């Protein structure tokens, strides 16, 4: 009975794998080639030139990669640490205060980035942050902080406060407690929150567009210009570079989860 069921199942699995990975494979092929036009099913030339551009400091793709990385790293850092302290405070609230606080933290996550950018643009422009790295960074942190705060509210909901109280009764000052007990215990969640904030900024489009005013060019924005200009090869390269950090994170998480014997992976 099992053997009979396995052939169609294999077929469906193959279909799933094909449909899922074909687009990515196509991107890879485009990124290592040039002069690939309709109606050819193969490019005229295979070349590593597109990826070389990523290291060429004069190249647009290189500078946008740098900007994206800087923004994402900074967003990750700011939002993870702030999110930790915010989440900690909020997780300790009970009753209606707790619910209201969580709802507040949810707002930056629930509101679509485009709506958020339009709402924020005027104020940020007035503060002189328009078209500047710092302005875009602030804009990215807004939703990222929402995600990390909610993340830490979840962490602290099951956090063992008793450990902190124990430290206090052993003589540790509040500062000691944070530095010697809480932060070390939270090392792993901090890394995860950093990754979360990083990814929120890394893939961001509307906030960068409207607050950066076209002056702050990140990789997603460049990707969109490449598409409009029909530069498929560069677009594919940019797309792959954009996919690498989240993909790496997914692999790491899946491996970690598998070690814990979870069900999915």
């Amino acid at each position, binding site marked *: 009975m099992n053997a009979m069921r396995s052939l169609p199942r294999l077929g469906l*699995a193959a279909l799933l*794998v094909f449909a899922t990975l074909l687009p990515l494979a196509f991107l890879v092929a485009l990124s290592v080639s040039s002069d690939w036009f309709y109606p050819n099913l193969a490019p005229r030339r295979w070349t590593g030139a597109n990826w070389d551009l990523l290291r060429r400091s004069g190249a647009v793709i290189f500078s946008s990669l740098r900007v994206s990385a800087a923004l994402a790293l900074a967003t990750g850092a700011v939002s993870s640490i702030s999110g930790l302290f915010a989440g900690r405070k909020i997780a*300790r609230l009970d009753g209606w205060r707790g619910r209201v606080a969580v709802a507040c*933290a949810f707002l930056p996550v629930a509101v679509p980035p485009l709506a*958020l950018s339009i709402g924020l643009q005027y*104020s940020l422009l007035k503060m002189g942050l328009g078209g500047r790295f710092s302005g875009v960074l602030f804009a990215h942190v807004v939703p990222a902080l929402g995600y990390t705060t909610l993340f830490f509210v979840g962490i602290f909901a099951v956090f063992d406060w008793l450990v902190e109280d124990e430290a206090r009764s052993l003589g540790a000052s509040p500062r000691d407690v944070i530095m010697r007990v809480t932060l070390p215990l939270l090392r792993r969640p901090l890394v995860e929150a950093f990754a979360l904030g990083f990814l929120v900024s890394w893939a961001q489009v509307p906030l960068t567009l409207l607050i950066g005013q076209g002056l702050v060019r990140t990789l997603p924005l460049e990707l969109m210009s490449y598409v409009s200009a029909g530069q498929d090869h560069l677009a594919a390269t940019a797309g792959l570079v*954009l996919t690498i950090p989240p993909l790496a994170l*997914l692999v790491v998480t899946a491996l970690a989860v598998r070690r814990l014997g979870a069900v999915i992976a």
Partner: protein
Amino acid sequence: MSGGRRGASGLIVAIVVSSPVLAGIVYSILGALGVAGPGADGMSLRHFQVVLGDSATWRSILWTVWIALASTLAATILAMGAAAIFRAQQGVDRFARLVAIVPLAVPHVVAALCGVLILSQSGLLARLAFAASLQSSPADMPALTSDRYGIGLIIALVWKEFPFLALVAFALIAQRGVALEETARTLGAGALRTFRVATLPALWRGLLPAMIAVFTFVAGNYEVAVLLAPSSPLALPLLTMERYTDSSLAARGDAFVLVLLAIMVSLWGVIAHEWFASRVEVVE
């Protein structure tokens, strides 16, 4: 040591975290009322009247709902199918489940890029059709990108959202599905009925919150719409952007009304999500 000072500081922190958004909402309200912003010309409901009275607005809303609904439902059905079929712990099934969640890592703008590269009239699909002698020029290919029905957009969105819904579905099957199915079978139900009565309802109920989240997200997403949606009818994010960057300042005020609309839709989405999530019974 509860309430009192600690309660106050926690709430303050929460408000600080949400303050930019709150400021943005307030500003949008003021802008929509004509009090603030580039097109400000005194308090009035004119912007509301213009936007809500414009048939383009409603066409946009309907079209956006169509796209979000179609892509969410399609992705959900595929996710349920994948969870029902690939349920064994090891082997082919496990490999399929692993591959299925890969697009989770792909940013939405890259998913849109793939849509363009593959589904456009000179894209991969068209070239395959050419090679199979099904067409002789790009124009022969039906437009799947920037088309009136948003087919290409829906396909790209399904590709991107399927892994998220599948992940939830896999967990549901593994946690609750097995015991429910065994119960149905031991009571006499065959394979098909077991699926209908035990598996499907459990999947559906568990997936509803995730579906709402996906729907809400898709409806508000800008970058995918930019690359794959048509210029008529306009998706809501695109309409909003168009009004906001319009050369006529009056139109910019209209954009704020659309922004408020989008925010309202999201908030309703969150409320609906919470409501359905709280109704899901926990089977220990």
